[in-house]
């Protein structure tokens, strides 16, 4: 791999004096953390808090294009980083990505680490999400061919990236996507497509699976399969303001792991925990949207059954995922409304979502969203009703306010047995006032009121209040002060030595400075543990106490 990097450098350096022939661009993203132990909130007992004190992550991309060739590479750095495992420290650095691509008339060839997806990603999505430590690039070869004016056929084969290595299983696939114009007035657009993805399990993973199955009772054993195929058909139909997307996917029998599987052991005990089983899978996903003159509405539906698709069944959480299942909840951004996020359940989920927005005038706009997620046995996992009213005085101030009401299954999303269905109501506001052409001030306020369990204790951490003041002077400076206060501690709130629940403040101070494409930030952060999600893919974010520094730039 290093040879490719050096070849890239040599190519760039050799052509450096000939800027007219090629174009060099790049991007840097870097983060530094200084850890300040705070045992009370759980920011302790990791190597970083105990003795390392500092951690860093950085990514430097370099892209070079010349004569139809594309060369890309990326230097990745992890120094005492807690990104991969929040409880541990990871140190490694090197070339985490390289890519060479060339278009030859209708044909395109790509080699290296490939990012791509088929349809909405239900059978295949190779992507990167740094905040979640996800990098599912495929190390391999990709071919594309333009069939006529309206069809693009793609084929690929390779292995999934695993930090600076690659998993051993082979993933290969084929897709075709078209663009068809229909109707007498030529105003009906169809974007149909289909895809096939195959994963061939490597011998090591198969032997490991066989060894595990050898510890199962005969009636729980199954004949594991090396090859699994996933098929998907999808189409987007657009006519005027109406757009309808539908995707149906099927996966042949696959070796799966159920994190809540129940099994009788050889010793005769019944245990609940990760258990291998084998089943085919399916997903049906559709979304209908309409947008016209200040009115917008969308409806989404998804049914998922046994559609965990991984490079090997031994991987869990966000590791080794080959596909991506679209989330069925709105993306919340305020600190408290985003606290309880629903991770996509790939083994069984029945979900729908409706979203309506209406612009009454230039000043007033309303958005209402409702989402409901159950498992296939109709057990409620997540339900949310969200309203947002935006009131504006153009060029002077903007007021956003609303209410979130949700129900959240802690047993499933937090792996907490016997935890009650969490209920929370959160009113919020966000007020932006322009002091001058350059200066503005923004206030945020949220209050989360949660329900009580059978013992009369407040759910999870109890009630919260959050306040934020942000002062910005364009185009360079932004200062932010915020505090999240556990005003009524609940079942899981920290306790003192006498066992009394503590009402703790979680303050945060940020300074941002931008100079052209370069941005610096310095933050003091005390953060409660929680879950962070991106597109329904989530991970536990442990409590943090310390100072964060980030620098990003592009050129």
């Amino acid at each position, binding site marked *: 791999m290093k040879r490719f990097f050096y070849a890239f450098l040599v190519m760039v350096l050799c052509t450096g004096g000939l800027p007219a022939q090629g174009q060099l661009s790049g991007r840097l993203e870097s983060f530094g953390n200084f850890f300040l132990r705070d045992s009370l909130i759980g920011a302790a007992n990791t190597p970083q808090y105990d003795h390392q004190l500092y951690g860093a992550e950085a990514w430097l991309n370099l892209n070079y294009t010349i004569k139809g060739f594309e060369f890309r590479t990326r230097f990745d750095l992890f120094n005492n980083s807690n990104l991969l495992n929040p409880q541990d420290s990871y140190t490694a650095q090197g070339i985490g990505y390289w890519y060479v691509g060339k278009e030859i008339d209708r044909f395109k060839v790509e080699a290296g680490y490939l990012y791509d997806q088929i349809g909405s990603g239900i059978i295949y999505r190779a992507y990167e999400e740094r905040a979640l430590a996800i990098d599912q690039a495929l190390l391999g070869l990709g071919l594309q061919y333009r069939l006529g004016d309206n*069809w693009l056929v793609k084929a690929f084969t390779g292995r999934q990236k695993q930090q600076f*290595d690659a998993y051993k299983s082979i993933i290969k696939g084929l897709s075709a996507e078209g663009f068809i114009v229909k109707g007498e007035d030529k105003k009906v657009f169809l974007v149909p497509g289909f895809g096939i993805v195959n994963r061939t399990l490597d011998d090591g993973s198969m032997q490991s699976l066989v060894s595990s199955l050898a510890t199962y009772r005969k009636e729980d054993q199954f004949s594991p*399969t090396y090859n699994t195929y996933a098929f998907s058909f999808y189409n987007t139909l657009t006519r005027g303001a109406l757009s309808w997307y539908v995707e149906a996917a099927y996966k042949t029998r696959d070796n799966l792991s159920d994190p809540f599987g129940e099994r009788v052991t*050889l*010793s005769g005990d019944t245990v609940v*925990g*990760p258990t291998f089983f084998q089943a085919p899978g399916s997903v049906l996903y559709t979304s209908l949207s309409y947008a016209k003159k200040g009115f917008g509405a969308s409806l989404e539906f998804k049914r998922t059954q046994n559609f965990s698709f991984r490079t090997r069944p031994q991987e869990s959480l966000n590791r080794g995922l080959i596909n991506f299942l679209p989330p069925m909840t709105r993306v919340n951004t305020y600190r408290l409304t985003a606290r309880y996020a629903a991770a996509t359940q790939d083994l069984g989920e029945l979900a729908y979502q409706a979203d309506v927005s209406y612009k009454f005038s230039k000043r007033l706009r309303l958005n209402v969203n409702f989402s409901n997620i159950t498992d296939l046995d109709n057990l409620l996992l997540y339900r949310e009703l969200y309203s947002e009213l935006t009131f504006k005085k153009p060029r002077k101030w903007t007021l956003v306010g609303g209410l979130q009401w949700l129900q959240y299954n802690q047993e499933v999303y937090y792996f907490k047995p016997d935890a009650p269905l969490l209920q929370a109501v959160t009113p919020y506001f966000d007020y932006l006032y322009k002091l001058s052409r350059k200066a503005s001030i923004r206030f945020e306020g949220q209050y989360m009121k949660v329900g009580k369990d059978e013992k009369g204790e407040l759910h999870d951490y109890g009630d919260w209040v959050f306040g934020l003041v942000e002062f910005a002077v364009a185009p360079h400076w932004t200062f932010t002060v915020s505090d999240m206060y556990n005003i009524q501690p609940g079942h899981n709130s920290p306790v003192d030595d006498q066992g009394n629940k503590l009402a703790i403040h979680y303050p945060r101070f940020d300074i941002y400075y931008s100079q052209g494409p370069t941005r610096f930030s310095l933050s003091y952060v005390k953060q409660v543990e929680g879950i962070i999600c991106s597109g329904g893919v989530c991970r536990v974010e442990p409590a943090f106490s310390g100072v964060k520094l980030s620098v990003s730039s592009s050129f």
Partner: protein
Amino acid sequence: MKKITQTGVLFVFLGLLLSSFPSCEEIPPVIPSGQNNPDTAIDVSQQKRQVLIEEFTGVRCVNCPAGSAEIQDLLLVYGEQLVAISIHAGEYSPPLPESMYDFRTEEGDQLINFLGAPFGYPSAVVNRKLFDGEFSVQLSKAKWAGYIAQEAAEDPRVKIGIETTYSDSNRSLEVKVTLYPQEDLSAEDLRLSVAITEDGIIDYQVTPDGEVPDYEHRHVLRDMLTAYDGDPITEALLPGSSPVFTYSFQVPADWNEEHCHVIAFVSKAGADKDVLQVHQVEMK
């Protein structure tokens, strides 16, 4: 016409591709029958490769009982070829308010720092080895059986004999560990660790069914007679040699000596921490 032909070709190709799948039969792997290793003591000369599994657990860890049950099944399959230690350390290890015992040990806390914290539970370390394709020695439950099978298939590079002398009157314990190198190991920096575990302790445990008061805790690490990462072996380990190491220990009154085991293992020092061989005997 051209468009119709191209779309037609595409769908004919797709049809051919789909119709070919039913014929793609593969030969499935054979699942070996379990319980093929009796759990009976054998002579050191007959000793096979014995594998160490160190499970990281805690009484507050809801998913850990499933891991412990998996280890019991693995012990049924591998018998004496597998030695288990359950280390109560990490975020889920503090005792519950109603717990009778605190299973945490100083060595356990040191070991979780030494080996790295788990990425989710259940988690265990197999022979302290960083296996190909893994970036941590901590392994999720789904990976234990495979790596144990892989390690158990190797030949032992050193064999271990353990003799114990326990006095009922004053609860004193003498441990004599003898190493039998099977090859020249003199160039390697090796450590000898000796640990005591206690089996069958009944106390509270959080499980998926809630708090269970009479949960049976297995293979609980109680103490170590050496440093947490082992004592340096200064004697040259050559084939034919048999260096002896002795230890004395006072068994605390609240331990059930009938359920205690003495475990000795040889491991590498440095970046690689691989365990070469492990052996266990009953304390009494």
